[in-house]
């Protein structure tokens, strides 16, 4: 259920988060509402995807990176 699989690619949940980010939702609460995922899953997934450079973070605002966009 993590957002990044063992192959380093986003899982189904990860893709959901990335697509929701790409549609303009940019904080964890909005992403949870937009993706239908629980808030705790969104927060842990965003942490993983920041580490994998698929998402960038500025305070509590998240943005999908070019690398993230190339995977959805």
């Amino acid at each position, binding site marked *: *259920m*993590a*957002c990044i699989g063992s192959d380093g690619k986003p899982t189904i949940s990860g893709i959901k988060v990335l697509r929701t980010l790409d549609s303009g939702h940019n904080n964890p*609460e909005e992403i949870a509402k937009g993706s239908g995922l*629980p*808030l*705790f*899953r969104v*927060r*842990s*997934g965003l*942490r*993983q995807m920041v580490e994998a450079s698929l998402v960038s973070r500025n305070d509590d605002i998240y943005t999908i990176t070019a690398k993230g966009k190339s995977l959805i």
Partner: protein
Amino acid sequence: MEEVKEKVISIPRIGEPAPDFEVVTSHGVLKLEDYKGSWLVLFSHPADFTPVCTTEFIAFSEIYPELQKRGTELLGLSIDSVSSHIAWARNIEEKTGVKIPFPIIADLSKEVSTSYGMIHPEQSKTETVRCVFIIDDKQIIRTILYYPLTTGRNMQEILRIIDALQTTDQYKVATPANWKPGDMVVVPSPNTQEMAEERVKQGYDCVDWYLCKKKL
């Protein structure tokens, strides 16, 4: 003479901040702070692939939609590996058709079970007893329940406690014995004689000045 030293472990208590954690779970790495803004039922079970625990996991899964309506998440824990948790959850789904929708902490290091006081050595030195920690949206411990290894938990009581706590927070009231949503609630006790005299005039359902109930 050999000196025996015992480490004193402080167990968290109601009203205190929940001990922090960063853990490996069947849903990936999670931190306590991931649950900020939601209520959380953190519960431990003795071991995967055991009979009473299996009945509890089915029962927890069944109340999960009701918990979600109350803005509450579920997080299990035992001193087993992630592989064991995944295999057990898959086995439960295969044999009973019930999908386990919540993460389970793999606490092989016993770090979380120790910090939450989940190991009771007279019951088992290697397994956690059946603990329930109800943690509110500000990450404060609001209720602690302990059950022995042999006794499965009552899910309706867990829901009832969450309803009672959330009602208390919203309306600044207390809830009487066996209270359930829709029942009358207890008006907080007056602190002064003047307040006690006022209380009786306010039209509450009073046994006496110190025990008054009202409908919400």
